[in-house]
């Protein structure tokens, strides 16, 4: 009984791994160099920014929200931290902390707009997406910041032995996110809020606090991602983060996050980011133009989500859709909403 009940979840969780394995295998067959350790490490590194942002988004999506400002926060944090080091002489570690802190605050502000002003998350973060991007331009007047200190680059873009540090960071953030979501009171409150905000509220959960914390987390991780982007090119640009909004969102969605709320998987998001990284890397190896790469990426997102819906029961959905017509007019007068 218990195994039975959990099988749909497991099927979907395994489904995404199978999909990833198939994609890796296809590239490996077409270009054997794809599966060499050196290249796989490149794939992992290229997935890192999407993975970090995607993990934060996963929390937001589970609460039933969305954060469109993550790309802008990454840009804003990147340029502020770079400028503080290059122009202000701030030490790299302090700049790192400053950047993550700035991301947390920017994210928490989103949360405040959504809870206290009761703005729909899409609208609130659409607004701050533009506002934070504007802030990123204002900091340096739109000019890039070059010559980021090598020490900073070394922290985020170096190697610990054979392993890129950034991959270690993603592993740590991933494990931490899983523990936070699945093994803490906070995580349970996040899932409850997304599953039914009314139930959570009537059960004594401070729904607004949960939401503000989740957007702060999303902002903080977007900030970290912005710092990684700076370290990887040793320079900061005012709009360096913007492309990552859609790809990180895609990673979360491929990984099984449901934009209706209540559902999302940490492992799924990580694999989703890896799939996107593999697609980019593999198609470069195959000399496919980046224009086609965009088309393929889009198709993969659509297929992944369609498959995810399928395993949740396409037929089950159809059944409820038909069933829903019945209660409308039907069962009894007691079903009318009381006022």
């Amino acid at each position: 009984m218990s195994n039975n009940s959990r099988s749909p979840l497991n099927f979907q969780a395994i489904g995404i791994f199978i999909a990833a394995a198939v994609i890796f295998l296809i590239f490996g067959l077409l270009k054997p160099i794809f599966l060499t350790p050196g290249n796989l490490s490149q794939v992992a590194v290229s997935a890192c920014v999407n993975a970090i942002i995607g993990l934060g988004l996963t929390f937001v999506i589970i609460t039933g929200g969305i954060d469109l400002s993550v790309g802008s926060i990454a840009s804003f944090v990147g340029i502020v931290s770079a400028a503080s080091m290059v122009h202000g002489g701030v030490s790299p570690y302090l700049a790192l902390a400053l950047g993550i802190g700035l991301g947390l605050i920017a994210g928490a502000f989103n949360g405040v707009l959504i809870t206290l002003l009761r703005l729909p998350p899409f609208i609130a973060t659409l607004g701050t997406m533009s506002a934070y991007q504007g802030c990123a331009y204002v900091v340096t007047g739109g000019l890039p910041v070059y010559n980021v200190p090598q020490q900073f680059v070394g922290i985020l873009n170096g190697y610990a032995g054979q392993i890129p540090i950034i991959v270690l960071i993603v592993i740590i953030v991933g494990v931490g996110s899983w523990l936070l979501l699945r093994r803490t009171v906070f995580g349970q409150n996040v899932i409850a809020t997304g599953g039914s905000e009314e139930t959570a509220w009537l059960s004594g959960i401070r729904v607004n606090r949960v939401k503000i914390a989740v957007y702060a987390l999303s902002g903080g991780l977007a900030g970290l991602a912005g710092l990684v982007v700076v370290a990887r090119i040793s320079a900061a640009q005012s709009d360096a983060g913007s492309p990552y909004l859609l790809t990180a969102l895609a990673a979360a969605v491929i990984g099984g996050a449901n934009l209706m709320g209540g559902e999302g998987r940490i492992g799924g998001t990580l694999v989703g980011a890896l799939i996107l990284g593999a697609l980019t890397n593999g198609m470069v190896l195959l000399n496919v133009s980046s224009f086609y790469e965009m088309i393929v990426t889009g198709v993969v997102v659509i297929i992944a989500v369609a498959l995810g819906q399928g395993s949740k029961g396409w037929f089950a959905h159809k059944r409820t859709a038909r069933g829903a017509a019945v209660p409308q007019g039907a069962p009894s007068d007691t079903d009318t909403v009381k006022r």
Partner: protein
Amino acid sequence: MGEPLLEIRNISKTFPGVRALDDVSFSLSRGEILALVGENGAGKSTLLAIIGGSLVPDSGSVVVEGVRRSEYTPRRALADGVVIAYQEPAIVGQLTVGQNLLIGRSAARRRASTVEVRETLSNLARMGFPLDAHTPASTLSPAQRQALAIARVFALGAKIVALDEPTTSLAEQNVAAVLNGVRELSHEREVGIIYVSHKMHEVMEVSDSVVVLRDGMVRFSSPTNETSTDEIVRNMVGRQLLEFRRTHPVASNAAIFFTVTDVTHPSGVGPASISVRAGEVLGIAGLVGSGRTEFLRAIVKADAGSTGSVTIDGRRVPIRSPRDARDAGIAFIPEERKRQGLILQMPAYANVTITAGREFAQFGPFLNPSRQIAATEEVGAQLSLRPTNVRLAAHQFSGGNQQKLVIAKWIRRDARVYLFDEPTKGVDVAGKAEIYSLIDALAAAGHAIVVVSSDLPEIIALSDRALVMRNGRFLSEHVGNDINEHSLVASAMGISKGMP
């Protein structure tokens, strides 16, 4: 007149576990107003849905002007000239009054339609609501919207109109005008009207004949002028009782344990106050829409703008949110189990421990699921939860067991006050009996219990004392033998002695 306009022939309809309609037959002539009355759950809505084509009967048929309806779709019903006007008028606020009347009309028919609009507006004026076609519908009062919806039905050229509690949002002084309009229009155009209402004086005033539904069957029918309010009410009540007796009725000397004073809800409910003794079950009856749910929600401050003070065991407890209510030991078990009581995709144990706060945290913030599971299994065993596997998602439990999960959230926390809103809604008979025993046991343990229910036998079986709410106020208190269907229904409908 010859053949009747509408004939309902031997219609039966069963939903899983409920026989909603059982061999229902009656007929409606042109220009007749037929009042369809019955308690909540008697089958009126199901019958309207079948007439309106949104439900298919299991057996029996709807015959319009001698033609047996071949398919049950809303489209077919419209083609038959059947229009159902529901309680909530379907008016689009962004459009003007005139545009609302033209919804669904093709451009080609606009010219003809404008004539209808003019006519509708004159009908409205006759009902005491002179409106201008250019008025934005969003500025209309609830009464004007209701009147507009009724007027529109006649403009649609309907032959058969079902009005589902058309006067609920109308003030007393407007009711007469609207009813007059309805009667004149129906006689003038020979429209047959099925008039669903809980308000006996309206039924007596406006209708030509009465049909009483009870437990899905026609219990009584008569020309209105040959019957009385009393006879109608007597036939409405007396639904089958589930055999249940409380084991420990409240002791006569029990002390007041739970008091709420001057509770108001922003929807206009209250101020209302109750006090409940330790071990007492207080039933709250009333019609759907009388404000019972809002009263309970206001006690736990579920909605912003609610006021009122709460005393438990002689101590005043400040409550600003459901969280405060939880911490004060007040359990609110809401009506919409699936939407307000549970998080369906979460495992049962996570649902039951959702009210636990940090109770199960270890090593700082970390949760140990095995402790949550053990605690849930313990309370589950106490409530004979089936299945016993609390790792299953909440949606895998039956209605009765889902309700047990919601109750378990609070029993595990040792709540002392339980506010139940429709505790057995959607629960089958076996599950009902179990939940009744559970409520009985909670009372026997000395807790204070409030049960809001539209199911009168439920109120009667459970309550030591019952209150009837109408229009957001408590009107009457019933104790002992006075907790019977007749007196509760009479009070809820405002026909008891001494009522305005």
